[in-house]
């Protein structure tokens, strides 16, 4: 059975069993749900008005920024088209809510309330308002398990926003830490650099913030620098998250070079370890 699963033969079985235990998760989540509902209901009118005004302002601000972004994106698509390269376009976003249940304490996985019924698929990127949270691991009919980027078995291709330097961010089992091994000592990376998804590997759309570099240690004796980054997403606090579905906007011929690129990237990481 265990081997079965390693070969991913039993995913329909898993989906079925997971759907069967979903009510238990719901029952556990229920008291929290009621608590939230009550606190929302009992909020004073004044607080609500204040919040409303604040949100309205924020909305206006974002709207204005979005207008410029739209235009920039179109321009970008046009330029990428000139270069004959593929460009990912965001297609559908699904908002999922966290179910407050404890899963395996030694892995960073969380459960959300959207599943295959809502079009979620394994490997789908999960974001929150601040950045990348993780990807969908296993799914059932109406819930899904999300593996966070800090899980010890998770790796994410990233690039430095400032200069496009590529790297791979590994989870280290600590919620506030990502590691970037395999970066040479003379790599141009500094504390405070923003890391964004590079889109290599095909799993994640490019350009979403992942983490901020907090520590770069260069030891002359070692071939690689020790780089630690802190995820920008609030991995342990966000309750609502976005499940993104992307689509590559170009012909199928264009996908080949990208895949090649990915392979070479993997090769680099392999030889480094």
């Amino acid at each position: 059975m265990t081997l079965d699963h390693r070969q991913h033969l039993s995913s329909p079985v898993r989906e079925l069993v997971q759907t069967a235990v979903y009510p238990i998760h719901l029952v556990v989540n229920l008291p929290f749900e009621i608590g939230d509902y009550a606190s929302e209901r009992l909020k004073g009118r004044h607080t609500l008005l204040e919040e409303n005004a604040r949100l309205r302002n924020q909305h206006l601000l974002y709207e204005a920024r979005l207008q410029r972004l739209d235009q920039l994106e179109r321009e970008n698509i046009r330029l990428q088209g000139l270069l004959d390269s593929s460009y990912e376009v965001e297609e559908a976003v699904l908002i999922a809510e966290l179910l407050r249940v404890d899963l395996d304490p030694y892995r960073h996985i969380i459960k959300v309330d959207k599943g295959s019924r809502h079009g979620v698929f394994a490997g789908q990127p999960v974001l929150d308002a601040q950045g990348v949270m993780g990807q969908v691991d296993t799914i059932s009919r109406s819930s899904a398990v999300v593996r966070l980027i800090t899980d010890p078995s998770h790796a994410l291709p990233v690039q430095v926003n400032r200069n496009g330097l590529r790297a791979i961010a590994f989870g280290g089992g600590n919620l506030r830490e990502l590691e970037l091994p395999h970066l040479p000592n003379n790599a141009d990376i500094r504390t405070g650099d923003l890391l964004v998804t590079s889109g290599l590997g095909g799993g994640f759309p490019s350009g979403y913030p992942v983490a901020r570099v907090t520590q770069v240690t260069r030891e002359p004796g070692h071939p690689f620098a020790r780089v630690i980054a802190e995820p920008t997403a609030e991995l342990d606090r966000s309750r609502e998250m976005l499940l993104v579905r992307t689509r590559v906007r170009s012909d199928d011929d264009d996908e080949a070079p990208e895949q090649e690129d990915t392979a070479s990237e993997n090769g680099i990481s392999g030889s480094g370890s």
Partner: protein
Amino acid sequence: MTLAPRRGGTAIFGSILIAYVLTVVPLPEWARLARPEWVALVLIYWCMAVPHRVGAVTAFLAGLGQDALQGTLLGQHALAYVILAFVVVKLHQRIRVYPLGQQAVVVLVLLAMVHLIQFWINGLVGRPMPGAIYWLPPLIGTLVWPWLFVIMRGVRRYYGVQ
């Protein structure tokens, strides 16, 4: 035995369900690593009290449910619980007559065995190894056992499970 009415199926099923709920109910960060394996404890009790009704099959199904619940590899708890049920059913006549304290020691060994199997499977799959704190849940489970035993005995008598 074959003629005895099979009552109390709901009690067995319900107790396993409650164990599931206890398994996933959120705990504060410091207590998360100390959560005892409730399902294993409940299974030990039923295998010991009514070995002709709860055995490897129930344990297997309960383990599958546990795997789905925790998002672990499908079958790793199932395997551990089947072995657990086998041992308990084999030894049930002995464990039954032990005083509570001695029973708790046996339970410690059984829980440690379940944990060891998990540990092996996690190792095989290549999950990173946690430290010594990994072995805390069996100890907590042992401390919980006397209370659980008394409660479960009450449940069994109330529902007339035999």
